[in-house]
């Protein structure tokens, strides 16, 4: 695996905050799985010089067309650089990197819980779950309804999507817990998959412990190399009662739900 110059196919707004980037790439890159990420060498926006690559989780892949997709919000020098890309431009991408989500064939129904940019990370799960014949219920949290992404994508793959928002006062942990308890009691939660909210991770950990359910969480951390070399993206994990440091880029970014310290 080495970095490659991918061709920008599309780079469009999906709502007031998020943009959708599609690039043509190698077969190896297009083989990325849900939860894995790429290191993007972002173009320099006017007046700024992003130096490091930017980690970006995979939003979608198309192996037949040899494409990978990313969903990003313009927040800093790197994403302002991505914002300048137009179709036909070249973008230096490196990946797929890290350990992604893994679906157990024995799980009939899974629940995906995400918030904010975490919804982009969970998105490719819908496709895999459908291929495996696994039922998906998604609980998506955002500040406002119009900022929720991935809903059509999940519904397109046959998933039920429950949207909770701050503006409608439905996104609090207690309401999400009520929703999750209902899904568990209806036999629709054999495992949790989550990304994007520490509060929601804690809710799921409580329920996972109470009902003996497995779970996986995609974690974020500032990265430099993305290859496990520099040890800048470490986090603490609880491994059987002992606190150990792991590299998010190398040992993750997907970790066992119960080992995460959100």
């Amino acid at each position: 695996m080495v970095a490659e110059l991918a061709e920008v196919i599309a780079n469009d707004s999906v709502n007031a905050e998020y943009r959708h980037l599609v690039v043509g790439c190698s077969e190896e890159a297009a083989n990325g799985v849900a939860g894995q990420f790429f290191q993007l060498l972002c173009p320099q926006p006017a007046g700024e010089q992003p130096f490091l690559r930017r980690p970006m989780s995979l939003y979608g892949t198309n192996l037949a067309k040899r494409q990978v997709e990313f969903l990003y919000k313009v927040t800093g020098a790197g994403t302002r650089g991505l914002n300048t890309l137009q179709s036909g431009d070249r973008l230096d991408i490196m990946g797929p990197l890290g350990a992604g989500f893994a679906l157990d064939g024995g799980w009939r129904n899974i629940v995906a819980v995400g918030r904010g940019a975490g919804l982009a990370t969970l998105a490719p799960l819908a496709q895999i779950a459908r291929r495996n014949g696994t039922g998906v219920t998604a609980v998506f949290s955002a500040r406002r309804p119009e900022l929720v992404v991935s809903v059509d994508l999940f519904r397109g793959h046959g998933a039920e999507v429950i949207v909770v928002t701050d503006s409608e006062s439905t996104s609090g942990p207690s309401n999400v817990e009520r929703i999750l308890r209902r899904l568990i009691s209806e036999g629709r939660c054999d495992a949790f998959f989550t990304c994007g909210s520490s509060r929601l991770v804690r809710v799921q950990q409580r329920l996972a412990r109470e009902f003996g359910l497995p779970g996986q969480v995609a974690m974020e951390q500032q990265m430099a190399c993305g290859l496990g070399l520099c040890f800048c993206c470490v986090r603490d994990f609880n491994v059987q009662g002992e606190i150990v440091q792991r590299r998010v880029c190398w040992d993750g970014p997907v970790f066992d739900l119960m080992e995460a310290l959100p």
Partner: protein
Amino acid sequence: MSTPTAVDLSVTVGGLRLRNPVMPASGTFAEGLDRVMDFNRLGAIVTKTITRELRTGNPLPRVVERPGSLINAIGIPSKGVAHFIEETLPYYAPYNTPLVVSISAPTAEGFAGLAAELSLPGVAAIEANISCPNIEEDGKAFAMRAETTEKVTRQLRDATKLPLWVKLTPNTGDMPEVARAAEAAGADAVVVANTILSMAIDLKTFKPCLGNIMGGLSGPAIKPIILRHVFQCARAIRIPVIGCGGIATSDDAVEYMLAGASAVQVGTATFVQPAAMTTIIEGLAAFCMHRDIARVAELSGGVVIEEADEPDLAWLNPPT
């Protein structure tokens, strides 16, 4: 006209014969890079710094970027000597590339003990990272002063028969003096240099950008500064100088060798382009072929300073 295969890239550095002059800087290399390159193409492998004790490293954030540069304060997380001997050493055993083990300790005695313990089959050389704080000298790095450099290097020399490389810090007033002390105490080579002590502040929060407040600057921005240090140190000592500071391209490597380096270390560039080292090796061969240079070692110290135009360098090396 030479062909690419006719270029001899091999160099001799501090007691070791290397197939080419390119190796990683300590702390920027790990097993993960085997996904990107064949380790048998490198001149040498340099491990992350090993300490006797387990170290978790510094509080986060550990890195912040600035134009053309990176400031890091990772804090040498180390799993200790036993883990190195049981896990890391066997991992690199199948490769026929010299393994240089970087070590650090808070005292001169600690350095010596570690060097003795790590003088094992499979270890080709010891690189002593004496840019770290010395607890016997109020936290000042050993390599900030000639006397402490000489003391720790002498103890290291007595502790190991392996080639001994000493990694110096640019955070000192007189690097040539420190380099001379390392040479006098028996070092086989010096690595010039480590990162430059620096700082960044977040304008939203008014807090330092790094959990450790200060960190080490690396990357292309520091290349002209470290190049100057290499030039000065190479003139001051007879043992080889290994250049390390902001090298990202083969042109950078050539510049360092012309300034007096016998070999180069590549660090931060690998974080941006993981294949940087092999790209530089290919570029060095191409450069030599293009310029009809048969051996890359001929570049070392090849900077042309014409007598008629010789600048007055006395102010760089004031008589002591």
